[in-house]
């Protein structure tokens, strides 16, 4: 058996481990267009903030490839897939044959076609190389465009490095894909307290400067700066797959079945590039987040190595971490009324509790938990995750779920009620508390 993996981040590495848990001997060739291996992409803002040095960005030890007998091809771009002859071709003109191929190509940062985007000092933040450029770039004033996770964390990082930072978001709130307006306002207040200027509901129309960016122009103002970070999101990197004739799903990712196999046999896809069944939406979706990439990589790897395991589905999960000083976690859907991908005729319900510094919201669809937002007390966040993942109806547990006394033992009867939704191992692991 010959395994070829395209991609070198969370999903690819997780797949390697899964393959090696079954197949100790076959060859694994891993191709990544990035020269630096095994660094954690989500931690790049911490690198810019000088909170973590380069070695601490690694999520596996430096000898990972040797230990797992993987042949890494770093800095090598794969040019095409020849599905009929089961080969891939790289840009340096070489070909490699495979029996099982995994596409874990991740996403490409979206670069909006704004006038002046080619000026010096404008960067996306996706690769280690991007992070290095931003880190070494001498600037006093920065504008971050897009207030998603990367945008918010980058703003705080640059602020910590002593820059004057403006965060520009075209929608009406920060973290629009992570929080609803109320949670976002708590987070926004924190960001502003750190000394970052946030401008909402305004779009960058043009960048100006003489070779080097000096101004960002919006509908109503001119912001002077000498660096711009573009953080308006990522799009699945589907070029290779598309060219090979692999089916692309309706939300723009590579369509996969529950074994993580694409429309072409023996070609698998996982991570930020894959479109999977979203449990909370009940429809296909690309959930480009770290835990999903790891899970999907594992499922893909196991199936590639011949062990049939089915993926239950993904759902969005975000944690803002200590960057803003208070824990804030959100999963699943954000709000009932604007769930555009859900069919009509379904009863949605929102339950909220707000204090000055904390916020808790549950979103229910026909009594089933489909979304949770927590700001402040988040220790029990994982409990909601089981309920969400196993599609449990929770109507009779709402007082407990909204209470600060929520704990695992009091949820046990509910978990028992849905025992058939767990696999045997899962259930055993959950129930084996010595009862």
């Amino acid at each position, binding site marked *: 058996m010959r395994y070829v993996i395209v991609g070198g981040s969370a999903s690819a590495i997780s797949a390697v481990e899964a393959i090696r848990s079954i197949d100790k001997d076959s060859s694994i060739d891993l191709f990544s267009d990035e020269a630096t291996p095994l660094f954690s992409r989500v931690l790049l803002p911490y690198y810019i903030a000088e909170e973590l040095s380069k070695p601490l960005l690694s999520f596996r030890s430096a000898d990972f490839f040797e230990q797992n007998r993987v042949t890494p091809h770093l800095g090598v771009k794969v040019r095409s897939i020849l599905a009929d002859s089961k080969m891939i071709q790289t840009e340096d003109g070489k070909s490699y044959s495979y029996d099982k191929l995994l596409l874990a190509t991740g996403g490409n940062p979206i670069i909006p076609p704004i006038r002046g985007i080619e000026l010096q000092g404008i960067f996306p933040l996706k690769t280690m190389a991007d992070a290095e450029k931003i880190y070494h770039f001498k600037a006093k004033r920065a504008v971050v465009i897009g207030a998603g996770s990367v945008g918010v964390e980058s703003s705080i990082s640059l602020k910590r490095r002593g820059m004057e930072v403006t965060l520009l978001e075209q929608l009406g709130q920060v973290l629009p894909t992570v929080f609803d307006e109320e949670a976002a306002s708590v987070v926004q207040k924190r960001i502003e307290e750190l000394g970052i200027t946030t401008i909402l509901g305004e779009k960058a129309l043009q960048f100006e400067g003489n070779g080097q960016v000096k101004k960002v122009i919006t509908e109503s103002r001119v912001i002077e700066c000498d660096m711009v970070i573009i953080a308006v999101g990522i799009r699945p990197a589907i070029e290779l797959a598309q060219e090979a004739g692999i089916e692309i799903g309706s939300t723009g990712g590579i369509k996969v079945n529950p074994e993580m196999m694409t429309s072409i046999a023996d070609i698998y896809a996982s991570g930020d590039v894959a479109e999977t069944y979203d449990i909370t939406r009940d429809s296909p979706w690309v959930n480009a987040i770290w835990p999903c990439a790891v899970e999907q990589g594992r499922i893909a790897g196991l199936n590639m190595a011949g062990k049939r395991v089915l993926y239950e589905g993904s759902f969005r999960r975000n944690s803002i971490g200590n960057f803003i000083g208070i824990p804030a976690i959100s999963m699943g859907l954000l709000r009932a009324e604007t769930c555009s991908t859900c069919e009509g005729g379904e009863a949605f319900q929102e339950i909220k509790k707000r204090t000055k510094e904390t916020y808790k919201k549950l979103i229910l669809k026909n009594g089933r938990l489909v979304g949770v937002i927590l700001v402040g007390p988040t220790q029990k966040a994982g409990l909601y995750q089981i309920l969400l993942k196993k599609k449990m109806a929770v109507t009779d547990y709402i007082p407990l779920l909204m209470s600060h006394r929520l704990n*695992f033992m009091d949820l046990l009867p509910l978990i028992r009620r849905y025992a058939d939704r767990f696999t045997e*191992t899962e259930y055993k692991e959950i129930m084996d*508390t010595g009862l």
Partner: protein
Amino acid sequence: MVDKNKCTGCHQCELWCGTEIASVSKELYQAIHETPQPVPRVFVEGKDFALQCRHCEEAPCIEACPNGTMRRDPETGLVYVYEPTCIACWMCVMACPFGIITPSSTLKVAIKCDRCRNMGYPICAEVCPTQAIRLEERKDYRTKAF
């Protein structure tokens, strides 16, 4: 092992864990005045059940950790936080199905039970007056030899 029938919900395990493991002074009277406040790794839940990390075989916290801070000791199988690299992103907190990982904003680390891996015997089991918490090897459960 925690025996539900024997647990009286006396919180001795919480007190001792908080003092002996988490506090600087190791003396209860001083520990309660410490800042940041010591956090126990075991919690008496519901009315009477002591819950600590289960050291899951397929541990969601390890899968969620973006930089290998949440680790498994290859010899004992115990899951622990390697504190020097913890960046307080709270991904593990979000993933733990038992809700036993405490996000400590003051210490900027995730805090969880490591079953006293450096002490030989877990303190919660040692102090439990009814022996509801016991350390026992069970061959019937774990598929791997932990």
